[in-house]
């Protein structure tokens, strides 16, 4: 008996009941089928929107939605016209472009078509007259001379170069940009309709103009691809999957009828999963369309366990009912546990921020649980009813598992050491992992879509645009010359960035119009100085634009927000994030109008942030990896808890963590070495595979545990466990690996990687289960439970998790210098060990009334730069708060510090919240964040200039701006003056969240201690807003007086209260 059935009789009785009521199960199956298909109609057709990956509550998606509500929605298509002779400006190619431009207007839902032929060429005509005309008025009959003239004009227009119309260099291809206004009523119809008609048009034009080739890209095609690829994945992968399952089951069971029974079961399980999707109101998508394959792969494993046990029973008896009875009695517990843990792992996908994964998790969980039900009821019923042939030959492969058992027993030490070495080597691969979500490249090169997108992005422009909506603060504000100057400077700055080759902005158009209005005088290729002039130019320009063209894709209707767009082509996630951060910093410094308007509009987002579907995708992994860390942890705790409960053995349960957790982490490590770049898929793999890999562990451990309880030695128990389930473990794992191997053939990277990672993980898990786990059991099960071993495993896990968090962005030159100065100041102040000092605070209000507080401050330095220092403040005056002590364990931002307060009146120490950074410290002008230990990583820095120190002009000061990383800070920035000689703080100007100067802190009376460390005698904080000031007078500094880190614990705090 296994420990899963502690009374022994329970399983036997349940098994007996199942066998006796077998007719009932057939009826129940029929009922379940009915239940499954009742709502199944709702799950098709496939949801073809790239945005399914973003939940409504995803803040990045909300920003994108808001942007698209403000500007015209970005349903665009870029058709690259590639002349085979490599020159666009020929009569033939221009004719093709012209025809495409003309006929594209007849595509469904088209709003606007732009190309080089209908490009609005503006120029001056006589005195201040403005002429607007098509660049190529009659494309069908262009002379070579006209083509050359058009080329000369076009190459002079920055709006055309690198913006999708012409390549950044040369004229080898041109783009026709088609904007659509999809009603959005039924995307499953609208998108295929548009794409279908475009394909027809393409065929016609390529036929009529054999010298050109058309390649289209854009969000419409991306969405269409989501639809097409989903269907393709479904169609191409299902067939091989069925064949494979039949093959594996057939080989393992050697019975066609049994294989068919298994096939029936897994189909019914998949149906149940899809049925649940229907009941839950899900619509299938590119991710969930594969859920039936997941379910089938997983359920087949339990079925194989049942049937191979059945085969062993056949050796002893020919009573079919007895086969079923014995199989169930022996394996029911393990199958239930294995299925429940698998379902639990998948249910933990609900922690993902991306809805398709949540749906996948739920569908698969239901399918697996249904599979469990069928395995325990329908399958035994079928065994008794179907004339499955009795096979009395002992399976040959049993010898293999016996040999593995003997090998492990003889070499357990070597196996463990080798396993550990492998684990370390693989885990090092974590450093190679790089999150990379470039969603057009989720589809691999086998798709025409991907080839076309690559062509367009390599030759013309990024298909997806990173957009900065720059607010001017008031309706009509975009005409303000000061604001336009800010935007123009930003555009220039962007153009100087390596990631942004082209930038689109209305400021270019306005400059151009200004020049046109001044007789095409090049000197006037600049912004007008009057708001009225800018407004009039725009009105004039808009009136003269052709049908379907307006400015609403550049500026909102209120004339309040201006868009600056940068097409991103093959930009890595990290590069895009980096650019957006740098741009945010630049805008904060150099665009006060936009920054102030932004802060008024979005008080929670301190930095002007771009948007765009690419950008939203680029953030999703960052967000989801963090969300799923929690999910994976829940899965880990839940599943381990279940195993411990089921095995009723804490020690063996804890041991099982090693073969369960290590494979997933080693899988990631292997991926890091082999591939490096991962998408969103990686975030969910740990939780999903955990439930799968534990199955083998559960089967093995339950048999092992039973043998141990029966009195066998660890070695013999390993032998027995191998004999009973070794074969089934190998077969099921192979079938799972093969199944996921087929899923890995998906051309959609998220699906493919998820399946590949799962297959790798399960393979490693099999090795771990067959070699490492028995070795561990043999070596550890003899002695007392070894806490340190488990702790080591947990340590490895923690290390891996730490490595998963991607490294931060790089800093720039002025930022590097600022950082270097801050770092130098910190470095020079390192190594003081501990010090205590007496402090007196003199609070002075505007009228000069004073009040005082006296305290002692005790500090211990923690050398580890990843944590902050320790500090205790003990008050002695006013006397009513005497003995009140505050302990602070500083942490690196944005993590809150840990703080405890000791109240002597009641002798109570109390952990208090320290999220109150901005609050006044004992009603002084110092806030908590001014006084707590400030660590270098708490801020980002930018060196501004060197100048004489304001409070001591004989010294030279570095002036550095530091920006708090934590949005909860009360400051937008601190400007710090540090003297160049000793890097001592001389003055700090605090700017509040609105950017206004709030307080100034001046340091004086520096003295040097221990021949090295400088400390001030007086710190004066003046609040410019209220007129109040606080002096902080320091005296009696004592360094290295033997304060110990241990004493600065919450429990010892009371001893400092004197």
């Amino acid at each position, binding site marked *: 008996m296994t420990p899963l059935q502690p009374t022994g009789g329970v399983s036997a009785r349940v098994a007996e009941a199942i066998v006796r009521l077998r007719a009932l199960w057939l009826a129940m199956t029929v009922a379940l089928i009915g239940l499954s298909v009742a709502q199944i109609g709702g799950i098709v057709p496939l949801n073809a929107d790239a945005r399914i990956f973003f939940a409504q509550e995803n803040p990045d998606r909300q920003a994108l939605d808001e942007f698209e509500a403000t500007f015209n929605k970005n349903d665009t298509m870029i058709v690259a016209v590639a002349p085979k002779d490599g020159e666009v400006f020929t009569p033939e190619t221009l004719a093709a472009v012209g025809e495409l431009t003309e006929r594209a207007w007849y595509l469904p839902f088209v709003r606007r078509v732009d190309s080089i032929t209908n490009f609005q060429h503006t120029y001056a005509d006589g005195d201040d007259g403005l002429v607007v005309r098509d660049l190529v008025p009659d494309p069908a009959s262009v002379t070579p001379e006209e083509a050359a003239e058009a080329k000369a004009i076009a190459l002079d227009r920055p709006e055309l170069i690198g913006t999708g119309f012409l390549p950044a260099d040369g004229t080898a291809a041109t783009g026709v940009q088609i904007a659509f206004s999809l009603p959005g009523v039924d995307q499953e119809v609208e998108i295929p309709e548009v794409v279908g008609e475009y394909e027809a048009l393409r065929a016609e034009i390529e036929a009529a103009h054999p010298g050109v080739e058309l390649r289209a890209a854009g969000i419409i095609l991306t969405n269409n691809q989501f639809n097409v690829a989903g269907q393709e994945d479904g169609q191409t992968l299902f067939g091989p999957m069925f064949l494979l399952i039949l093959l594996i089951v057939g080989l393992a069971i050697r019975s066609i009828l049994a294989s068919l029974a298994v096939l029936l079961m897994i189909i019914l399980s998949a149906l149940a999963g899809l049925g649940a999707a229907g009941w839950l109101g899900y619509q299938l998508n590119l991710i969930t369309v594969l859920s039936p394959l997941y379910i089938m792969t997983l359920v087949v494993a339990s079925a194989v366990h049942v049937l191979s046990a059945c085969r062993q029973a056949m050796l002893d008896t020919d009573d079919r009912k007895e086969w079923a009875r014995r199989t169930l009695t022996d394996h029911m517990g393990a199958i239930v546990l294995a299925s429940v843990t698998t379902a639990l792992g998948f249910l933990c996908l609900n922690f993902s921020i991306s809805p398709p994964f949540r749906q996948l998790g739920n569908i698969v969980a239901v399918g697996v649980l249904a599979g469990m039900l069928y395995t325990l009821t329908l399958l035994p019923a079928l065994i008794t009813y179907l004339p499955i042939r009795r096979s009395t030959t002992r399976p040959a492969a049993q010898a293999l598992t016996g040999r593995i058992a003997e090998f492990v027993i003889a070499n357990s030490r070597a196996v463990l050491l080798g396993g550990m070495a492998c684990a370390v080597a693989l885990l090092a691969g974590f450093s190679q992992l790089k999150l990379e979500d470039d969603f057009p490249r989720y589809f691999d090169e086998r798709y025409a879509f991907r080839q076309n997108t690559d062509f367009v992005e390599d030759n013309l422009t990024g298909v997806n645009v990173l957009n900065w909506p720059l607010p001017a603060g008031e309706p009509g504000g975009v005409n303000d010359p000061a604001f336009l100057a800010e935007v123009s400077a930003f555009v220039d700055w962007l153009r100087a960035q390596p990631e942004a080759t082209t930038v689109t902005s209305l400021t270019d158009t306005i400059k151009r119009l200004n020049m046109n209005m001044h007789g095409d005088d090049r000197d006037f290729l600049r912004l007008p100085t009057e708001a009225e002039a800018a407004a009039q130019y725009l009105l004039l320009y808009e009136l003269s634009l052709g049908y379907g063209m307006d400015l609403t894709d550049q500026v909102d209707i209120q004339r309040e927000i201006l868009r600056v767009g940068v097409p991103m082509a093959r930009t890595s996630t990290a590069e895009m994030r980096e650019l957006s951060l740098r741009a945010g910093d630049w805008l904060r410094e150099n665009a006060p109008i936009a920054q102030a308007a932004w802060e008024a509009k979005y008080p929670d987002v301190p930095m002007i942030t771009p948007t765009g579907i690419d950008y939203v995708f680029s953030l999703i992994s960052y967000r989801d990896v963090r969300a799923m860390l929690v999910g994976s942890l829940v899965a880990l705790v839940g599943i381990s808890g279940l195993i411990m409960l089921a095995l009723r053995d804490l020690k063996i349960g804890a041991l099982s963590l090693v073969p369960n957790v290590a494979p997933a982490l080693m899988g990631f490590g292997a991926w890091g070495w082999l591939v490096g770049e991962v998408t969103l898929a990686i975030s969910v793999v740990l939780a999903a595979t955990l439930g799968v890999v534990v199955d083998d562990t559960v089967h093995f451990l339950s048999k092992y545990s039973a043998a141990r309880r029966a009195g066998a030695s660890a070695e013999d128990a390993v032998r027995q466990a191998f004999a009973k389930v070794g074969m089934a473990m190998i077969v099921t794992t192979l079938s799972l690996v093969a199944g996921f191997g087929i899923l890995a053939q998906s051309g959609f990277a998220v699906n493919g990687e998820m399946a590949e990672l799962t297959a790798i993980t399960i393979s490693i898990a099999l090795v771990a289960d067959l070699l490492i786990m028995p070795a561990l059991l043999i070596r550890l099960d003899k002695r007392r439970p070894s806490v340190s071993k488990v702790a080591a495993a947990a340590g490895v896990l923690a290390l891996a998790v730490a490595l998963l968090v991607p490294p931060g962005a790089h800093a720039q030159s002025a930022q590097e210098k600022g950082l270097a100065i801050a770092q130098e100041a910190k470095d020079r102040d390192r190594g003081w060990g501990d010090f205590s000092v007496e402090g007196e605070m003199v609070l002075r209000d505007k009228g000069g009334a004073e009040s005082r507080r006296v305290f002692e401050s005790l500090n211990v330095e923690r050398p580890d730069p990843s944590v902050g220092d320790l500090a205790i403040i003990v008050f002695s005056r*006013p*006397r009513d708060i005497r003995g009140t002590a505050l302990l602070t364990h500083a942490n690196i931002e944005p993590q809150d510090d840990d703080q405890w307060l000791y109240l002597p009146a009641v002798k109570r120490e109390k952990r208090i919240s320290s999220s109150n950074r901005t609050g006044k410290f004992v*009603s002084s002008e110092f806030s908590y964040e001014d006084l707590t230990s400030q660590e270098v990583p708490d801020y980002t820095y930018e060196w501004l200039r060197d100048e004489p120190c304001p409070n001591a002009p004989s010294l030279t000061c570095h002036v550095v701006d530091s920006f708090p990383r934590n949005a909860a800070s009360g400051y937008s920035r601190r400007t710090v003056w540090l003297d160049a000689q000793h890097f001592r703080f001389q003055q700090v100007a605090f700017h509040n969240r609105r950017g206004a100067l709030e307080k100034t802190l001046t340091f004086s009376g520096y003295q040097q201690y221990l021949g090295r460390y400088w400390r001030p005698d007086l710190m004066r904080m003046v609040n410019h807003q209220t007129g109040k000031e606080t002096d902080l007078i320091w005296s009696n500094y004592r360094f290295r007086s*033997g304060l110990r880190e241990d004493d600065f*614990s919450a429990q010892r705090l009371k*001893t400092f209260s004197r």
Partner: protein
Amino acid sequence: MPSVSRPFRAERTAAALAALLLAAGPASAEGLAPEAYDLFGEIELEGTGFLQSPQFAGQRRDDVSVAGKATFLAEWAGGDAVLRITPFARLDAADDRRTHVDLREAKLDLYRDDWSFRIGIDTVFWAKTEAVHLVDIVAQDDRIEDIDNETRLGQPMLRVGWLSELGELSLFYLPYFRERPTPGRTGRLRLNPPVADARPVYDTGAEEWTPSFAARFAGVAGDVDFGLSAFHGLGREPALFLDPGGALRPFYERITQVGLDLQYTSDATLWKFEGIHRSGQRNLSFVEESYLAATGGVEHTLYGVLDTPGDLGLIAEYAWDQRGEDALTPWQNDLFLGARLALNDVSDTSALILGSVDLGDGAVGVRLEFERRIAPNLSLGLEAQAFLGFDQSAPFDAFADDSYLRVRLTRFFGLK
């Protein structure tokens, strides 16, 4: 007449203390002079007005009282040996029993790396929650000082503490037992008849010399502060019985209690829990019964309310006792809602309002505390307590007419 509340053999303790001082102090003679010392304390004047006339014969209506305490502090070996002596005394006009003196502290603390030793008299307070303090058990509640269960009598003890990475383990040997003082016949806020403090009944032969033992492991794990405690010895909370002479007499017996207290700190929100299991304690019906009790809740602080520097803490807690109506405490199924305001001004003005609702009988208690420094060494305190609908909740219906308002003026003094 002042009377020492239950005299114990102070001379024995003093002798032991002196012996230890000599043994543990620095070897050289001049080393015996403290490196640092201080004397500080406070004197308070208190007036209490009750809103209704007394319920029971003999109770005085209002009360005026003077109290004081002083602490003598001396340190040796750079603070690794600390002597603290804090006597306390109160003179009360209305209730002779409230006129009492106590040695709150008379202890020597020695620290050596991660070890700490204490011998002498001290008070100890273990708590996480705000309204009800279940886990705290070492020192007796000084019930005549205040009814909020936060003042303790000095407890003779020998304590060994060991500090580890995860927290501190403390072991207590408590050789002597302090009986719980309660208001007398003329005092308010008492049961009826008043508890016969002077005639307790012990379940043990050694009576107040019955030793008790306690252990606690308290530490911090990330955002969680936890404490695990165990106690075996004379229960601090007496069961009460009416003797044939009609006196309500306290009954002290051996109990065993284990307790768990937790606090999870999440940004501005503190989640708190205290739970105990106690066996060997007789309940209100004087039947011995093992029971569980728990209390927990949440404290959320709003910083900078209404654009002032002030903080407003919102408190919601619930207390439960398995014994239900048989519990010795009124807090068996009660909900507490309250707010704590700290103005964070120059005068450290603070206020607390805490309401309790007995979800069983609907009795409502409201407590209001206010404190403000009015001069550099002078503090003004207000305390108001209302008992609403207590008439039905026996035996605490004795408090039904005892709603009061108390004003306290405290003067602080010190050598330095």
